[in-house]
């Protein structure tokens, strides 16, 4: 269950930072409403009170009032300075990582996120973290600029190809939250969507233990089906026969495909394996060579499981 709709405005807060950001947001919000009421109220009152009756005559020559002008300059200036200091103080906290944080490396590329854990586990588009523990993200991009945004946590940072961006958060609620790429990155930008799954300490530990292979008793094909979504194959390859950014997986195993250079290939285990590790080497005719390599992201066992899964998609 994606729990994001808190109020009509801010989504439900789920990080230590969120309540402070929200306080300032609503402070500015109510100030704006008061000033808006003054602007609209005065305009409406003057329009009614001083509406033109008959032909125009000469009107009052009042064209300045020093006291009034000082007041309406000074009050907004003081208010925005309060807002500035408040905003800057909270902003700095985004970048001061607590000493006891756990670190997860984030790699962004067209069009998915990869998360590497200290335990050697990795995950695609699903960031699993423990609740009540500060998490430091060390982020970099493999191609263009992307961005990491979790609305419920109120955190966001661009992810750049030539440097590390560091940001941290501490989740306060167990649940599943949207993760969006917010820096425009091309065709798949709007499908570069992941989830942050916040688990209890115990559940998190279980997940780490299980994440490196199929759960006990699970068939290879079933494990492969899970990898199909968790490794973001589904962003570009459908199961229902509709071509997307890449060819559909429906009936892919054993199919004869025509390559961009005109040659034909029967899709077998070796071609699938090669397409995961060197995806632009043999591209099916009619598709762009845009798939990134899964070298280093998929383990041998996972490649095997995906192949077994593809055999079952008919």
């Amino acid at each position, binding site marked *: 269950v994606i729990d994001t709709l808190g109020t009509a*405005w801010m989504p439900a807060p789920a990080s230590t930072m969120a309540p402070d950001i929200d306080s300032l947001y609503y402070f500015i919000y109510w100030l704006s409403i008061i000033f808006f009421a003054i602007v609209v109220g005065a305009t409406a009152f003057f329009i009614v009170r001083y*509406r033109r009756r008959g032909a125009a005559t*000469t009107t009052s020559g009042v064209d300045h009032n020093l006291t009034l002008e000082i007041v309406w300059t000074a009050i*907004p200036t003081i208010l925005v300075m309060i807002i500035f200091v408040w905003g*800057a103080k909270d902003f700095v906290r985004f970048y001061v990582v607590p000493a006891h944080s756990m670190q997860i490396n984030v790699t962004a590329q067209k069009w998915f996120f990869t998360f590497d854990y200290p335990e050697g586990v990795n995950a695609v588009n699903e960031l699993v973290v423990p609740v009540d523990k500060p998490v430091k993200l060390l982020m970099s991009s493999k191609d263009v600029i992307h961005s990491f*945004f979790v*609305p419920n946590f109120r955190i966001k940072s661009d992810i750049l190809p030539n440097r590390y961006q560091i940001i941290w958060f501490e989740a306060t609620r167990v649940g599943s939250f949207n993760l969006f790429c917010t820096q425009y990155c*091309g065709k798949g*930008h709007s499908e570069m969507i992941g989830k942050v799954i916040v688990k209890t300490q115990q559940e998190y530990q279980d997940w780490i233990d299980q994440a490196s292979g199929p759960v006990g008793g699970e068939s290879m094909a079933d494990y492969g089906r899970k990898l199909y979504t968790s490794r973001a194959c589904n962003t570009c390859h459908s199961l229902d026969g509709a071509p997307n950014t890449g060819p559909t997986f429906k009936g892919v195993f054993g199919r004869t495909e025509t390559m961009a250079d005109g040659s034909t290939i029967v899709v077998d285990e070796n071609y699938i394996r090669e397409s995961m590790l060197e995806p632009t080497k043999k591209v099916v005719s009619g598709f762009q060579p845009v798939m990134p390599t899964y070298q280093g992201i998929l383990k041998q066992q996972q490649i095997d499981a995906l192949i077994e899964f593809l055999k079952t998609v008919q």
Partner: protein
Amino acid sequence: MSDTAQTVPTQSYLNHPKGLWTWLSTRDHKRIGLMYMYLIMTAFFAAGVLALLVRFELLTPGRELMGADMYNKMFTLHGAIMIFLFIIPSIPAALGNIILPLMIGARDVAFPRLNLMSWYLYIIGALFMLFSIITGAVDTGWTFYTPYSTTTSTSVISTAMGVFILGFSSIFTGLNFIVTIHKLRAPGMTWFKMPLFVWALYATAILQVLATPVIGITLVLLAAERFAGIGIFDPAMGGDPVLFQHFFWFYSHPAVYIMILPGMGIISEIISIFSHKKIFGYRAIAYSSLGIAFTSFLVWGHHMFVSGQSELAAIIFSFLTFFVGIPSGIKTFNWIATMYKGQISLKAPMLYAISFLILFSIGGFTGIMLGTLSVDVHLHDTYFVVSHFHYVMMGGTVMALLGGLHLWWPKIWGRMYNETLAAISAVLIFIGFNATFFTQFFLGTQGMPRRYYTYVEQYQPLHAMSTHGSWVMAIGFLLMGYYLIHAIFKGKPAGPNPWGALSLEWTTASPPPTENFDKQPLAEHGPYDYDQVVAKPTA
């Protein structure tokens, strides 16, 4: 209201001399302004249709009309055309060209040939952009962020070339206006007797001349990287993508004020005329235009709070950003104070000025939210930014442009439009605008990222409402197109001064003769001296 029936002069700048070539080779600022207006309105229409298509596609998360590639090109073109071909030249090059010399009692701008050249540069720039559309269009967003823009296969370079050339058109117009305002004011018109629209155009012209070269430089560097392989912005070649953002916003933030300052000038005129009241805080409004122009050079980094610039830089840019908000607030208070003890009539231009006051205020308040560092981290690159931008640019500049069009339409053509239809269309546009864009504040705060072709299901109802709002707005604009064009041919004659206004452009015939005034006008009273002079409305 007039005692004697008005007639439209048989000979004016519109029909003397005759023939297409006399227009294409004209040095008359009014004809050049009008030719600008035709092109700018065409661009507005085209980019408006693109906006409607983009909004229609967003009705549901799935596919309505087009795929992701096409959608990305559509929103890029909507932005690029609206910004570079419509809103930047809109008020200065079209209305400013026509009205500025009339307002200061001059025969023409200082450099009429340069003025014509600006228009031809605009056409050449537009042709480059048209060429890029034919050769596959561009999908980078109007911001051209690297390294996406240096690696995409679409027509980035011809679009950039178009923007580069349009920049020169803008610089020449700015240069022309600065000299015109310094040298060609009528006898008696001291600096502080100039109409505030002239002050606003002056501040704008300074920005055009000083800021526009930077985008030219940036685009040349972009081309150098793409063609010569010199690593400037692309990290694969040793460049830095954040450097591009600094360059881009160093121009594009002042450019936002190139877009809004002339609009503020128009609002000053309209509120004084239709309140029949001396403007409140003349000097404060004039100086705040210059203050905004100056400060606007120091705040570009507020577009980059989450981009990877240093936290210290972000804090300094946030601090300075609040100081660009203060002069806008002062102007708003002055406009409202102008209505105090006036004689207010709600003619069409005034309806647009009131729309402006309301919408621009909302744009300003949401600007405070975005300028606040910690809050911006959440709102950055969401629909909140999309909506804020449209409240400032469409709720601000476009409402002011429409107000200006309705104010000076009788001066330009010598004929009145249907005021009932004008009021209906103003209300439709106001309602449609808010339905379209206020919903986007909710969307953005809830986390909906911008530039998304598809989206998660929970955002669908608000997207649908936004799309429906865009249809109401479109009906308002179609109605406006109808009665404004109808007025050109069939409107009743307006006479020289249909509103009873006091600035100099209302002392000559409507439409004015080629030489603007029969004899050199004198600024005998200030443009806002409604406490001393009453001019009888002629329509």
